């Protein structure tokens, strides 16, 4: 088929025309592409650059090292120790199960740790190191390091973890830290992003949680370059963290240890306070527990044992526990009556062994009665009827508020601001309180019960210690627990004088001296004979419940015949030296029986330790007791006082 030149020419023209049109369209589209490129790379370049920067740079937090807690002499109570652990990187491991089995042949790892690690592994990218086990011994780490070539993907690692070298002594004061729980996060309004770091530790109870803000410090940041997979390529820059503040407590580690040891075997609480500046030197709560168990999560077996213990080791008896103060409260009744001028210091009251108000008969602890009693004799022998009478007179003229006001001035029913968990408020009842809480009228019998620290009255050992310190000085000293933060001493506020006449206070102080020194004093057996260290105190016995008529019929007449948890609480408050007061103490021995037998002896020993700054010498004790005290001290497992390290170092 031959084509004419004309057709060829025509076809060529057509193709040329269409070709030019097509070329034009193509060039036009390329122009569009160029414009789009210009728009993105020139006009919108800045916003894309910003996006690119965000893409590439990832800010990671560096956990700060937690502040160290020292006692008043610089002894470490809580510090950060190197925590040896073993981590696994999934992508480097050929067979996870097999490798874990191999590791377990070398190092003991609990099943629950393995389960947790496997869960974590499934959730995270394969290159993220996952902790298999921590708190390993150095020997285990060494063992792993030697076998490292046979265990690809397994690396021994070191991190920081909280430890409490003094163990149980400070469990109730300092508390403990633990891993951040869901509940912790829910509780916080705006949680610190730090808390999201796995294995970050946060205060759970005590000073650790109450001063979390100071102890935690500020996270550092490092800017790292990552790729799309999240793998770290390199570190670009680093802002170091700000370490948490180091805190120094007012507690003396030796005294604290002595108090814990002295009270061991009892369910008891004891607070020792400096009467001048309010420094709390010891806050012992027995029995205690090892806070180190909680740091990594306690096993349920250990926890159940602690929880189900009848002596309640997890319960802080010094501030959380509130008890009827019993006769230790009588100083308050006496002072209130003196201030109200309803009774004179030398005025005598007849004690027939009971007092009848309305149709109820209120007994004195001494059934036969004390006879004629003045203030000094009434306190020394703890005559109940004297205080019934004094409070009755006072309440008739001024109402029970005359007593409750004075109690608040002495720190009872007041919440003392300390960085401790679950501080109990105690209770000083008033007419209004009874009406509001119970919808009942205040009865004269309530006044009588209150006057001897029973009925509704509740106080914690801390509050009783504050009361005693204020009785000793006549000033409104407040307790404090933190001595310095980051080496800077916290100021001690000047204590205001209390609105109490010197003479009345002196009368009370003298009576308290007679309690533990006088011929008929209830705590005479617990006196201190060392010169210039005379102790002034007051015993108290608070009934947990009365002996029932059925029990009486069965012949139960004495407290120690009852089951333990129904026996009376024994209390004792004291200060020493009498002439120049230095330390106040308040002790409760739960279900220990009478205050003079259960609470006064350990109080004296602990107070003596505070005065001597070490285990007291036998000369301080009455001669006939020295043999027994020596045996007791020999049997006690007292830790020798520690010396502060020359330079407190940060682990």
């Amino acid at each position: 088929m031959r084509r004419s030149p004309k057709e060829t020419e025509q076809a060529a023209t057509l193709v040329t025309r269409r070709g030019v049109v097509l070329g034009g369209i193509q060039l036009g589209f390329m122009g569009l592409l160029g414009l789009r490129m210009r728009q993105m790379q020139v006009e919108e370049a800045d916003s894309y650059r910003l996006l690119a920067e965000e893409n590439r740079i990832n800010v990671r937090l560096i956990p700060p090292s937690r502040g160290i807690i020292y006692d008043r002499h610089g002894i470490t109570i809580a510090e950060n120790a190197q925590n040896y652990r073993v981590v696994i990187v999934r992508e480097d491991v050929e067979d996870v199960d097999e490798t874990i089995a191999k590791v377990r042949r070398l190092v003991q790892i609990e099943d629950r740790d393995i389960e947790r690690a496997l869960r974590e592994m499934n959730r995270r990218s394969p290159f993220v190191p996952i902790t298999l086990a921590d708190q390993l011994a150095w020997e285990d780490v060494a063992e792993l390091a030697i076998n490292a070539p046979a265990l690809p993907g397994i690396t021994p690692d070191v991190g920081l973890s909280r430890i409490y070298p003094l163990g149980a002594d400070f469990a109730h004061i300092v508390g403990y830290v633990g891993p951040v729980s869901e509940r912790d996060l829910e509780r916080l309004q705006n949680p610190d992003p730090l808390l999201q770091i796995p294995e970050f530790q946060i205060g759970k109870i005590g000073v650790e949680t109450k001063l979390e803000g100071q102890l935690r410090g500020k996270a550092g940041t490092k800017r790292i370059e990552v790729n799309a997979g999240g793998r770290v390529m390199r570190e670009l820059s680093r802002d170091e963290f700000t370490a948490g503040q180091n805190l120094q407590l007012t507690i003396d580690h030796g005294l604290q240890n002595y108090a814990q040891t002295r009270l061991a075997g009892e369910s008891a609480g004891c607070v020792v306070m400096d009467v001048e500046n309010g420094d709390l030197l010891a806050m012992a709560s027995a029995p205690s527990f090892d806070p180190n168990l909680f740091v990594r999560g306690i096993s349920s077996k250990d926890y159940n044992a602690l929880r189900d213990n009848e002596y309640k080791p997890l319960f802080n008896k010094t501030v959380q526990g509130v008890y009827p103060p019993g006769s230790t409260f009588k100083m308050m009744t006496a002072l209130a009556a003196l201030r109200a001028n309803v009774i004179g210091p030398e005025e005598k009251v007849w004690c027939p062994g009971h007092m009848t108000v309305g149709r109820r008969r209120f007994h004195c602890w001494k059934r036969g009665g004390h006879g004629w009693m003045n203030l000094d004799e009434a306190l020394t022998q703890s005559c109940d009827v004297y205080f019934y009478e004094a409070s009755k007179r006072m309440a008739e003229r001024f109402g029970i508020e005359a007593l409750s006001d004075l109690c608040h001035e002495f720190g009872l029913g007041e919440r003392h601001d300390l960085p401790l968990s679950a501080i109990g408020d105690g209770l000083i009842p008033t007419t209004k309180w009874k009406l509001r809480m119970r919808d009942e009228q205040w009865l004269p019998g309530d006044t009588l019960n209150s006057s001897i620290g029973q009925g509704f009255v509740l106080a914690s050992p801390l509050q009783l210690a504050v009361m005693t310190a204020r009785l000793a000085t006549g000033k409104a000293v407040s307790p404090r627990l933190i001595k310095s933060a980051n080496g800077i001493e916290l100021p001690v506020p000047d204590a205001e004088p209390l609105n109490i006449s010197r003479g009345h206070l002196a009368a009370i102080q003298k009576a308290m001296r007679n309690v533990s020194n006088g011929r008929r004093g209830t705590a005479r057996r617990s006196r201190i004979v060392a010169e210039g260290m005379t102790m002034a105190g007051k015993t108290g016995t608070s009934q947990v419940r009365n002996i029932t008529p059925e029990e009486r019929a069965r012949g139960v007449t004495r407290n120690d015949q009852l089951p333990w948890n129904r026996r009376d609480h024994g209390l004792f408050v004291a200060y020493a030296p009498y002439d120049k007061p230095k330390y106040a103490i308040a002790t409760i021995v739960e279900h220990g029986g009478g205050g003079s037998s259960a609470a006064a002896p350990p109080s004296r020993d602990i107070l003596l330790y505070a005065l001597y700054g070490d285990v007291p010498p036998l000369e301080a004790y009455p001669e006939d007791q020295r043999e027994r005290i020596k045996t007791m001290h020999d049997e006690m497992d007292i830790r020798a006082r520690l010396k502060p390290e020359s330079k407190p170092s940060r682990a």
Partner: protein
Amino acid sequence: MSYLVNQVQTVPTGLRKVLYLNWALVLLLTAVACVGFLMLTSVAGGETSRWAEPQMKRFALGLVVMMIIAMIPIWFWRSVSGLAYLGALGLLLLVELFGVVGMGAQRWIDLGFMRLQPSEVMKITLVMVLAAYYDWLPLQKVSRPLWVIPPVLLTLVPTALVLKQPDLGTSILLVAGGGIVMFCAGVSWWYFIAVAAAGGALIYTVFASRGTDWQLLKDYQFRRIDTFLDPATDPLGAGYHITQSKIALGSGGWTGKGFMQGTQSRLNFLPEKHTDFIFTTLAEEFGFIGGISLLALYGLIIFFCVVSAVQNKDRFGSLLTLGIAATLFLFFAVNMSMVMGLAPVVGVPLPLVSYGGSAMLVLLAAFGLVQSAHVHRARSR
């Protein structure tokens, strides 16, 4: 017989042919390939052995193939174009039956020394067979409906096979390539308007098929279209590629971050950074200047092809040249639109730059045909 046979005495012979090669085109192609070597070195982190070296070897091989094809008279190529088309169709069927499944699609035949992608070959042979068809068809019959049907069938049969692989990008390129040759051959405008309308209807049907038993596209293809329409809906999922590509490209700015300094592409934010998304690396590291320069190189290639076609009185030669130029255009236009977020991610490489053996070889062979048409044309002495 056609015009060329009559004018054959004006065609250069022997080694003189080398002088008559379109050298500008050779230089331009080499320049574009060099841009590719540079970028492949960059994405490999400065290593040439990973991608750049094999690419250079293939380019060298491709140049030789191009020269050989260029030396063979264009009328030979015209006479074998039907066979070539049937051969490519056979290969497509072969992949359908025995092909290697890669990246979720059956695309390759393993030849041992390289993997052959028959759909690549088909793009060129389709242009050849259509050019030959219109070379044979008398001009007055071009727009008659009966004579429009054969080229449409020639286009749609391989398109259907490719679509079944499934390779959406290539099937679009096939349809567009076939359409362009028909357009250049002089098929009436009305057909194109009608096809555009039908295409609109087809797109509608495709979307309507979504979620039904006769779904025409795979789910991932639908998702790509979705995320193309609104990448923000799924920035870390399917829209991730587009978003990351735009960030990398946009952050390049005027002059770019410098050779091997592109943070986005180097840090693995980009997928397939050495193949489909290589333009992003170029735009990030050399900025607007770099991107527009590459675009200009492509533009010049198109320009020289159009000039060559216009000067060529041989219908087969000029249609072939225009068709192959259009194929090149479609490649880079779709690829660039894709990385700039103007088109969905369809998996079309950047011609001569993206890493990939068969695409480059086939393209250089195609330019061999363009050269052959250029050399073997009638010249007035």
